[in-house]
């Protein structure tokens, strides 16, 4: 294949000072601003009422008994199993026992759920508003500028990403337009923010976009059903204990060691 002569484009060095540099600085400053805005807007963790706390922790306790049953001797495990299954099945730990068996409340009417949604909304707004503003700022002032050349060759597929806003078919994909630089900053500044703000910051774009941890006790989850399932789990355990033959294990272990 005949080698194409590398393209050269004469760029004004002023492009660096007036486009590349300002975009970068603005992006970093926005990230810092967003971090502090999130810190300021964060609502304090909501107080959990005693019955709700009891419901959660009792369920966790049931799970702990189920997963660590082997530390108990057979009689004490039996006693706990009987007690817990009865209590779970009768709904003794429920937040509001009279609502048993009814479908879960609509999360829209639950004030607790609304709070969580407001928090999410706030976060999304803090994300969206500055991004829209910067995008339009770049589009108005800097659209169509080719500002830098990547120091390594890349395939033609990247052309649409790197040369957004510059509609030139024949240009080498190594050339980058200003809007592409904006996107690169948007996704690539995470480590700069880690350095500036500490590791758990809200500055970068995709910090909070990970998969949301499934909320075990969130609104819309029927606690009674969870308790019933837990009671069933406890009931089917075939008990053994770490204390069975522990002295034999110990003697053998010491010998082989």
């Amino acid at each position, binding site marked *: 294949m*005949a*080698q194409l*002569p*590398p393209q050269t484009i004469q760029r004004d060095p002023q492009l660096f000072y007036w486009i590349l540099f300002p975009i970068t600085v603005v992006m970093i400053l926005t990230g810092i601003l967003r971090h502090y805005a999130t810190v300021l807007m964060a609502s304090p963790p909501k107080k959990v009422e005693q019955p709700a706390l009891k419901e959660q922790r009792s369920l966790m306790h049931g799970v702990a008994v189920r997963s660590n049953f082997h530390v108990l001797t057979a009689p004490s495990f039996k006693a706990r199993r009987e007690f817990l299954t009865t209590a779970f099945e009768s709904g003794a730990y429920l937040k509001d026992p009279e609502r048993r068996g009814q479908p879960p409340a609509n999360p829209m009417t639950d004030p607790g759920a609304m709070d969580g949604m407001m928090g999410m909304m706030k976060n999304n707004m803090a994300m969206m508003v500055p991004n829209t503003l910067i995008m339009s700022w770049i589009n108005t002032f800097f659209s169509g500028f080719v500002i830098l050349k990547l120091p390594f060759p890349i395939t033609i597929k990247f052309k649409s990403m790197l040369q957004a806003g510059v509609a030139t078919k024949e240009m080498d994909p190594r050339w980058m337009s200003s809007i592409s630089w904006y996107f690169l900053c948007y996704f690539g500044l995470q480590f700069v923010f880690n350095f500036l703000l500490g590791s758990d910051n809200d500055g970068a774009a995709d910090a909070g976009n990970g998969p949301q941890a499934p909320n075990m006790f969130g609104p819309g989850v029927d606690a009674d059903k969870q308790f019933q399932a837990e009671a069933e789990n406890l009931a089917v355990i075939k008990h053994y204990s770490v204390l069975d033959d522990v002295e034999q294990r110990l003697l053998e272990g010491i010998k082989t060691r």
Partner: protein
Amino acid sequence: MTWFSKSTTTFGFLLLAHACPSSSCYSAYEHSALQSHRAASLSSLSATTQQAAASSSLPLDISLETIVATVIITLGLVLNTAKLRPIQWRVWAGQIERAGEEGARNSSGEIDKDFVGNPFKLLESRPGFVDIRKQRKEFAEWVKQQ
């Protein structure tokens, strides 16, 4: 052991430092060659492809030196690492009980920052339920005894 690994690392870095400037000089040379070749490409295309192929590989001694330096540095760094911590529960726990704080010293002789001793000691000392008045009485008695 430490002086050996440290001198190994130093030697490796020296070697790399020796290899690197020459290679950077070389890449500067390559760049200028490419510039001239671009100018020449206008005149004849076939001649320049040969020239480009000839100038696109590093001399063997420089690449060899760089590789050897990297291997030596890696070796030195690996030798310099702190002693590995136990990963078996009973060995780890035994070390805590047996050696106390001494077991958690790192290579520079300081006690590790994250060393907490027996994490289950809390279940017996129970800071949330501390009876401060009893502790003060006991302490006062201890002072009297001294």
